[in-house]
């Protein structure tokens, strides 16, 4: 076994780290998050200019190339400073790019992917509904009906992050067959300004500068060619991104662990109480060691899952485990970090509270820790427990 990154990967990781420290140090990310903006436009433009939106898009479609492993290295470094704002890159990279690569026509790919690589087009995903998070398909009510050369969409979507500023929404809805009965699912691209679309901002705990929305579709009409993949088989495009989403969130969680460890160590070495810096206290040292051990574990499981996925090997169990392990460690570490900073940790002028709020989402989305465990239990051959 060889655990070394090759020279190209090391250079890539270092260059991303250098970029984010220069362009988006933690202070700047924190100010951005507190700005009250609902879309971090400048961040999006800077990520595009740096070429990050093109990573994972093949060169033939105007991207920079690279695999999910390349993306994983980048996601970790960016998240170390950006925290949950990494979603401005992650959501379109998974829900847009991977979906199109897996399910779109050659013509759609040639038209859209180059513009996504340069940041000209922003995608948001509108899949989840109020009645179904984990039981996504079972709880789905939205419909897409063909009327002449147009799709007519009706229904309601939940947690569509970035929908307020997206050029295109990737919407999954039940396909209404020619006999009027539901048959499968359609994946349809809906321009963000289409009449009949209504969006309501959902104020939330973390990642506030990248707003999430409830989306209402009321007789929304789009051209027939906006379908991605075959009619009734829209799930295929979504399924293509599921493992990547978990793998990349595992890397993002590792980035949170990096940030927490840095900030906690610096604070402990500077803060004095009872006549010495508080890193002299054994309990605090032990907690730092725990966080360092969690980060080491997170690094290994996240990179292992990314490596499997990049090679095209089956990795459902590994990807789910990596997401479960890394997100839970990230939240635990941020919680301990906040405790170490005490009152200062509760202040919005330090980053620990931002890591704590942001990482908390990843124990919930895109799949909860509980459902992750159910899924893995099944993979281990245990009877269905839910």
């Amino acid at each position, binding site marked *: 076994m060889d655990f070394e990154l090759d020279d190209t990967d090391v250079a890539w990781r270092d260059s991303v780290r250098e970029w984010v420290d220069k362009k988006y140090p933690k202070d700047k990310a924190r100010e951005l998050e507190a700005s009250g903006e609902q879309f971090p436009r400048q961040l999006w433009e800077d990520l595009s200019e740096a070429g990050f939106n093109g990573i994972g898009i093949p060169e033939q479609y105007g991207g920079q190339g690279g695999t999910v492993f390349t993306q994983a290295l980048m996601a970790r470094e960016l998240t170390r400073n950006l925290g949950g704002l990494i979603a401005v890159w992650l959501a379109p990279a998974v829900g847009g790019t991977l979906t199109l690569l897996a399910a779109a026509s050659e013509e759609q790919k040639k038209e859209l992917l180059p513009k996504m690589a340069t940041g000209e087009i922003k995608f948001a995903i509108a899949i989840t509904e109020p009645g179904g998070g984990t039981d996504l398909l079972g709880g789905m009510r939205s419909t897409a009906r063909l009327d002449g050369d147009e799709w007519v969409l009706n229904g309601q979507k939940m947690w569509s992050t970035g929908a307020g500023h997206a050029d295109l929404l990737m919407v999954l809805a039940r396909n209404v067959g020619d006999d009027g009965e539901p048959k499968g699912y359609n994946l349809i691209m809906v321009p963000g300004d289409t009449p009949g679309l209504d969006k309501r901002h959902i104020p939330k*705990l973390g990642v506030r500068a990248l707003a999430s929305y409830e989306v209402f579709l009321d007789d929304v009409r789009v051209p027939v060619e906006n379908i991605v993949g075959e009619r009734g088989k829209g799930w295929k495009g979504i399924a293509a991104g599921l493992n990547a989403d978990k793998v990349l969130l595992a890397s993002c969680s590792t980035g949170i662990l990096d940030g927490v460890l840095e900030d906690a160590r610096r604070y402990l070495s500077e803060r004095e109480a009872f006549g010495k810096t508080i890193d002299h206290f054994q309990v605090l040292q032990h907690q730092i060691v725990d966080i360092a051990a969690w980060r080491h574990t997170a690094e290994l499981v996240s990179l292992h899952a990314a490596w499997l996925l990049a090679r095209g090997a089956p990795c459902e169990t590994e990807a789910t485990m990596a997401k479960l392990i890394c997100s839970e460690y990230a939240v635990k570490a941020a919680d301990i970090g906040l405790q170490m900073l*005490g009152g200062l940790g509760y202040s919005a002028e330090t980053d620990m*509270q931002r890591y704590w709020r942001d990482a908390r989402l990843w124990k*919930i*989305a895109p799949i*909860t820790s509980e459902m992750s465990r159910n899924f893995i239990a099944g993979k281990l051959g245990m009877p269905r427990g839910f």
Partner: protein
Amino acid sequence: MTDAHTAPWDLSEDQEAIKKAVDDGMKKFPLDYWLEIDRVGEFPNEFFGFAAQQGWLGVAQPTEYGGAGLGISEAVMMMEGIARGGGLSAASTVHMNVFGTNVVTKHGSDEMKQAYLPEIIAGRMKVAFGVSEPDSGLDTTSLRTRAVKDGGDWVVNGRKVWISTAQVADKILLLTRTREPAEGKSKADGLTLFFTDLDRDHITVNEIEKLGRKAVDSNELFIDDLRVPDRDMVGEEGRGFKLLLDGLNPERLLVASEAIGIGRKALEIAVEYAKERHVFGRPIGQNQGVQFPLAQSYAKLESAWLTILRGASLYDRGLDCGAEANSAKYLSGEYGFEAADRAMQVLGGYSYAKEYHVERLWREVKLTRIAPVSPELILCYLAERKLGLPKSY
């Protein structure tokens, strides 16, 4: 006072009555009220006025000044109910008036008490508690704010941090150093307490943006040549720190009861949701992975609550309650937070949305784990004072 009855684990009549009154009163301020308060970040004057009018602010103050003359056993019932109704935003709105000025009640001059306690109890006067400094959180006696005698006045200069409600307060309890410790005495010697006007010409109040409890402001204070008359001194010169120590145990019990109230509310929301939310054809609460953590939190919250009641009963009877008050604060902070965290997990994506309220409770209950004393320092206290282990710091 509970333990004096033949059935020591039952609530007293006073406790039952307070629980009912607070539960009824808090119905006028439902969670949506607090959601909006948290969004705009304004001090909840309407609720504060209501609490005063109900007599809540004076629950543990003497009747001669307009208080109810009850004890901490009743005050914890009240604060638990207020926190369960509106979270820490609600509890912190009244917390200072309910107990923060206890040191004035116990050690202030008659003149001071007659002039101010009725105002505080009636909600016409708000008080800030000016003890913490940037370089002395728990290591309080190392504080640097100085008061220097000048004729019949003291002139105060220094900095304070984490001073709640200073944006709206009329008065401040100010701990200062008036002289160096006497030979052979601890650093606590020479610290003097004043209860004085929060004079904004000489105290600059800068609000600190923070994680939770936006409506009840926290601030950094810069004190520049503040003149304090001699009559504003509480207790004797140089002996102020010891007076504050008297109030630490009841303060811990009250914060503990607030943590329990928040934990119980989060648990209640989670249980309701787990019953209603159907996934894969059945309520999610039917999953052991969902129901066991909730059941466990229930048991933990109840056990910590009993510790609070026990501590309060000891305090009200004038008995030592250091170990109980500290244990109660420790357990309640940990279990209250755990309950809120588990509620987050049960509500899934909705927990992350503000409109489902658990989000706010989760942010707020975290503060009960940090302030007024961290769990780490409580463990130090228990290890040393209760278990006789050597001092570790």
